């Protein structure tokens, strides 16, 4: 608590800008957006992941995270989100190290697919034009996305996640001040 640093300088406008970035990222899977410029969250939280959670998580969204006590106190303070012990009970899951299995997170139901979790996954780097081949809604032909530091076996797990549509998990990949999204509709082929 002693090292608590400020959140968004302008909570309304900064949250709106981040929301717009996430909306763009979800609409055009694999395209890299910027978010969190100027934010200095406690490590290991990166700026983009911090901005996403500041914008989307609140008292109504249970949060699971593996980012340690300092980041937890910071998010608790700025988002007011209840932190839960089981990743499967969370609406937002923040993974900064070994990500929990997609299948272990909230999947939603046929009646309420919106209850599926959003995984905010911190990775080492995001780069357009090479790497994975993404296809699906929001993509005219194919988007290429290179993800440095994706969890091992992610592409296979993703295929299972996609097969469960309309249920499943959405992912926001965050690296530094950059983010890209993988909505549950997108198909990933190794590049």
């Amino acid at each position, binding site marked *: *608590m*002693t090292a*608590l*640093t*400020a*959140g968004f300088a302008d*909570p309304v406008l900064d949250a709106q800008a981040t929301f717009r970035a996430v909306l763009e990222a979800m609409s055009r899977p694999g395209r890299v957006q910027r978010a969190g410029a100027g934010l200095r969250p406690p490590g290991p939280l990166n700026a983009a992941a911090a901005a996403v959670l500041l914008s989307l998580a609140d008292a109504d969204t249970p949060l699971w995270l593996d980012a340690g006590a300092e980041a937890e106190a910071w998010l608790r*303070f*700025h988002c007011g989100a209840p932190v839960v012990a089981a990743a499967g009970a969370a609406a937002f899951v923040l993974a900064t190290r070994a990500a929990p299995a997609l299948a272990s997170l909230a999947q939603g139901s046929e009646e309420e697919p919106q209850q599926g979790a959003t995984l905010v996954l911190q990775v080492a780097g995001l780069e357009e034009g090479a790497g994975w081949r993404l296809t699906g809604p929001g993509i005219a032909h194919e988007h290429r996305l290179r993800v440095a530091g994706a969890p091992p076996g992610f592409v296979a797990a993703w295929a299972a996640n996609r097969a469960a549509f309309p249920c499943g998990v959405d992912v926001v990949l965050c690296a530094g001040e950059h983010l890209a999204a993988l909505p549950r509709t997108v198909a990933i082929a190794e590049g």
Partner: protein
Amino acid sequence: MTAPDTEQRRRWMAVLARARAEEIAGLLAGLPPLPEPERLRPPETGLVMVRGRMGGDGGPFNLGEMTVTRCAVRLGDAVGHAYVAGRDKRQAELAALLDAALQDPARRDALLAGVIAPLAQRQQAARDAEARKAAATRVEFFAMQTTR
């Protein structure tokens, strides 16, 4: 003197939550000025869902929401918090500043005596006046003569 215990902190936060911004500012004006704090969270108005209990003492239910304004500042090592009913951002900011300052043993006694105690006194006086008005409307029953 060291860090305040939670009960003591709860008490001054409760007094500040019931005070108007001008009252707090008026009392602060008579004391040496406090340093400018760092704003951790600018004053922000939101809602708290107020809960009651079924039958008064049963399980909780949601009664309805109320407006609440919160603010957090840092003064030196101390983080001051305010959560106050209503939408007065100035009140929340002053309450957060005082919560931070009161955590500093070097400042605490002067602020307790100069700000918190007078506010608490006024609040108690207003409560007492209302309790006396209520008392005037208390029914004194007297028995009628029994008729045969």
